[in-house]
């Protein structure tokens, strides 16, 4: 998100899902759509049947790789080098879109010099382990297609270098002019039904709803607490995005925008909002306990299983003075709580979700609440009343109307009535605005093409070899994590569906046949996987989907919780955890299950 927003001014899928089937080239990196976004997987395969070229970059031989024109089987964590190498090929053969670069971007000369100096295909091949010919072929296929879409997912972002990966991808799309037109763009596939909405609604420490910055100085909570000098970096991204729709008075200088916005929200909510930066989830579970909160209110999340280094998270939650968990089941996290509040499921409440293509859609109550459970907003409202806060919301629709009023640049025109049948894609600032299926193009008023932030900014991103935990003698394997088709996250929901358990009822760690043979592991064996942080037991699946030296686990199963092993190192820019690469060792379990 930070990466895409830095370049273009907005961090969401640029093109709609319905575009995919008619892309001429599709570049899938760090994403396994046939398992994680099956509907998108269907469309990609249909596009290939219609003649689209498919490029897959993934350390694993994922199902889509079987039908790909090129599979770039790079070493985990070397994506930046790979993408810069592709850029090198494009520039060397003059395949860039010169008109687009001249009209709509900034910083190309610098990028070209940087790439041509440091990222020759041969050196990239040495870093990534991908043959030079494959990199050339992929770059040519991508750059010569009339419309080429990039699709990425956690395999790109769940790295300490996640932000750099996305910047390098965005460079590729800009240099080939693949923005602001159908069947193209840069498209992050969001993993959960309303992860886009949770971001858009301001459930992030540094922004209010609609990405309106809560403070201007770019410091974190800990820098501010330590009295460090305020960095002069202003949150220009959000400020400019805000300007685009002409809602901020021009007289407000960029570094005062957040004061202006905070005042707006303070007035609307009847409270004085703090400009102290908030903690991120990584601060809440930081190795240093002084960074933790004293009380935590967790809604619909199971960080004990989903966060890296689970044992540590459990310890951090246990150490809290007070933990409230609000969920539909007694999850592993809820078991640690002081108070558990029963919430309603999606089928028992009204509201809206926002999908990966920015489409706001209506969720409707189909059945009455189970037992005494209440909708999350009702519980929050009841607490607000007890805490003497001056607001009294009566219905989801009324809450949504407040969202529209305070984030008009995204949602202003989205009344419940207009969302009724098919929803609308943001931005949709006014009630006569048709919504925005394709970002960064001519606006509906007929202005010239532009990025949400005006002009696309090229960034030079260098490959950092130290960004990943390196396998060594003690921990010779690289563990990467993935999700499976039949389950979802920590199985809070799918684990309660009998048939899905029947289809997949235990963790199966993928391991290459050669590694298995070397370690004497058979098809149904159980192994113990250990990292510097912990160890788990799991059964294996022997498959050449993973290359030698790499193993792959999901984090669905409490019995084999892969995140016990994961490295909690974080991306310095967007604070995403390094879940995709950890060094581990594997021992055949003495007692077979």
């Amino acid at each position: 998100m930070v990466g895409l927003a830095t370049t273009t001014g907005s961090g969401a899928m640029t093109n709609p899902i319905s575009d995919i089937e008619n892309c001429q080239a599709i570049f899938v990196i760090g994403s396994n759509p046939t398992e994680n976004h099956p509907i998108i997987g269907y469309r990609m395969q249909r596009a290939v049947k219609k003649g689209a070229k498919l490029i897959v970059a993934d350390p694993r031989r994922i199902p889509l790789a079987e039908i790909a024109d090129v599979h770039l089987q790079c070493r985990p964590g070397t994506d930046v080098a790979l993408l810069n190498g592709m850029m090198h090929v494009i520039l060397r053969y003059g395949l860039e879109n010169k008109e687009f670069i001249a009209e709509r971007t900034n910083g190309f000369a610098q990028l070209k010099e940087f790439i041509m100096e440091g990222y020759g295909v041969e050196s990239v091949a040495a870093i990534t382990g991908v043959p030079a010919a494959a990199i050339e072929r992929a770059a040519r296929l991508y750059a010569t297609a009339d419309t080429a879409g990039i699709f990425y997912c956690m395999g790109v972002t769940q790295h300490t270098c996640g932000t750099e990966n996305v910047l390098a991808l965005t460079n590729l799309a800009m240099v080939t002019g693949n923005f602001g037109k159908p069947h193209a763009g840069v498209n992050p596939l969001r993993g959960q039904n309303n992860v886009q909405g949770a971001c858009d609604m301001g459930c992030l420490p540094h922004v209010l709803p609609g990405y309106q910055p809560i403070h201007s100085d770019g410091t974190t909570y800990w820098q501010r607490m330590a009295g460090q000098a305020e960095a002069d970096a202003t949150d220009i991204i959000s400020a400019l995005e805000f300007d685009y729709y002409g809602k901020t008075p021009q007289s407000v200088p960029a570094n005062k925008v957040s004061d202006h916005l905070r005042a707006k929200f303070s007035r609307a909510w009847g409270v004085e909002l703090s400009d102290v930066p908030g903690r991120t989830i990584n601060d809440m579970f930081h190795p240093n306990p002084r960074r933790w909160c004293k009380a935590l209110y967790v809604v619909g999340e199971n960080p004990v299983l989903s966060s890296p280094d689970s044992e540590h998270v459990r310890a951090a939650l246990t150490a809290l003075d007070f933990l409230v968990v609000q969920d539909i089941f007694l999850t592993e996290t809820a078991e640690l709580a002081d108070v558990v509040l029963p919430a309603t499921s999606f089928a028992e409440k009204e509201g809206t979700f926002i999908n990966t293509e920015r489409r706001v859609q209506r969720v409707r109550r189909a059945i009455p609440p189970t037992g005494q459970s209440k909708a999350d907003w009702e519980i929050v409202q009841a607490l607000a009343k007890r805490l003497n806060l001056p607001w009294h919301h009566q219905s989801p629709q009324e809450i949504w109307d407040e969202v529209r009023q305070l984030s008009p640049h995204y949602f202003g025109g989205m009344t419940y009535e207009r969302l009724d049948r098919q929803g609308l894609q943001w931005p949709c600032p006014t009630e006569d605005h048709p919504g925005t299926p394709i970002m960064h193009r001519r606006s509906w008023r007929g202005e010239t093409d532009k990025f949400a932030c005006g002009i696309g900014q090229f960034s030079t991103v260098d490959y950092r070899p130290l960004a990943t935990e390196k396998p060594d003698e003690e921990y010779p394997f690289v563990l990467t994590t993935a999700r499976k088709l039949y389950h979802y996250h920590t199985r809070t929901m799918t684990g309660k569906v009998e048939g899905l358990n029947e289809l997949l009822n235990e963790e199966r760690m993928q391991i290459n046949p050669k590694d298995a043979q070397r370690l004497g592991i058979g098809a149904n064996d159980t192994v113990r996987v250990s990292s510097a942080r912990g160890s788990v037991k799991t059964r294996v699946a022997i498959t050449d989907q993973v290359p030698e030296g790499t193993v792959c686990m999901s984090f669905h199963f409490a019995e084999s919780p892969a995140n016990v092993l994961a490295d909690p190192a974080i991306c310095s820019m967007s604070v995403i955890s390094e879940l995709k690469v950890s060094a581990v060792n594997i021992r055949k379990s003495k007692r077979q299950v």
Partner: protein
Amino acid sequence: MGTIRFFIDGREITVTEGETILEAASKNGIYIPHVCHHPDLKPAGMCRVCVVEADGLLVPACRAPAAAGMVVKTGGNLVNKMQRLAVELLATNHHDDCLACGKNNACKLQEVAQYVGVDKQRLTRFQAQELRPVDDSNPFISRDYNKCILCGICVRACNEITCIEAIDYAFRGYAAKISTLSDKPLQDSKCTSCGECMVRCPVGALLPKGGVQAAYEVKTVCPYCGCGCGVYLSVREGKIVGVRGDRESKVNEGELCVKGRFGYSFVNHAERLTAPLIKRNGRFEEASWDEALDLVANKFREIQAEYGPESLGGLSSARVTNEDNYLFQKLLRSLGSNSIDHCARL
């Protein structure tokens, strides 16, 4: 492409060039019986039930393009005879136990048989002697070969819609059937249980296990991945009994995956939390809402008074609605803390 005019049973019809006779007819409200044709799939022309006479020739309406000035007859002795034969051939080895069949009243075979009229006795000599075992290996989909009429819609759906290509025709004569690779049970094939074949099966050969009719349906959004597929929840007696893809949705156009189509029984699961719980001496005890909410509010107040407003943090969810998320961050921020995050980063 231009438009052309032609005639069906004497009625003048205007269509876009390239459209088939069947498409043209159904757009103009003229029924031509058909079984193996499905609007989502490429025309196959296998069952021959849609045979019509076009300029004196017998053609399958589902594959024959309409031509300018063409004269089409959907009936007449020859056409009727051919259609009836085609339907009787399909019906001969169809195990008809209509009242007990999940497809009763929604069955394509019933529909064409009713229109064309069949004589079941005529072809009894072609009937297979034994019933075949039902493939019940898949937890969600039951496959009854005795009802299968080999129209191939499931094969085409698996190839053209999902591109999974798990099934195809196998064997010949009476042994012919739709099969997985090496004729393994569905469960052991590359089938992903998405059910795209099942929802298109014109007869009762592919049915959801334990499926019952709904009392009403509610349009909403799937709760799993970020695709946000449109779904209709089928409800009966206050419980969700089924899901179908919303064909109107621009996201999925009616298609779903295994989780979206079958993964809803968690909603009515016995382990759902039904009352607030307060932990006392290490054990959870049920409490009233007032008791639980008072405790939470007092604790928040105490802790914030002692350690400052920022000592309170919140983790929101990528699973709850926008309205829930909005109000949650409004609560924490109104209490003076910006420490709000969620698992977008996970």
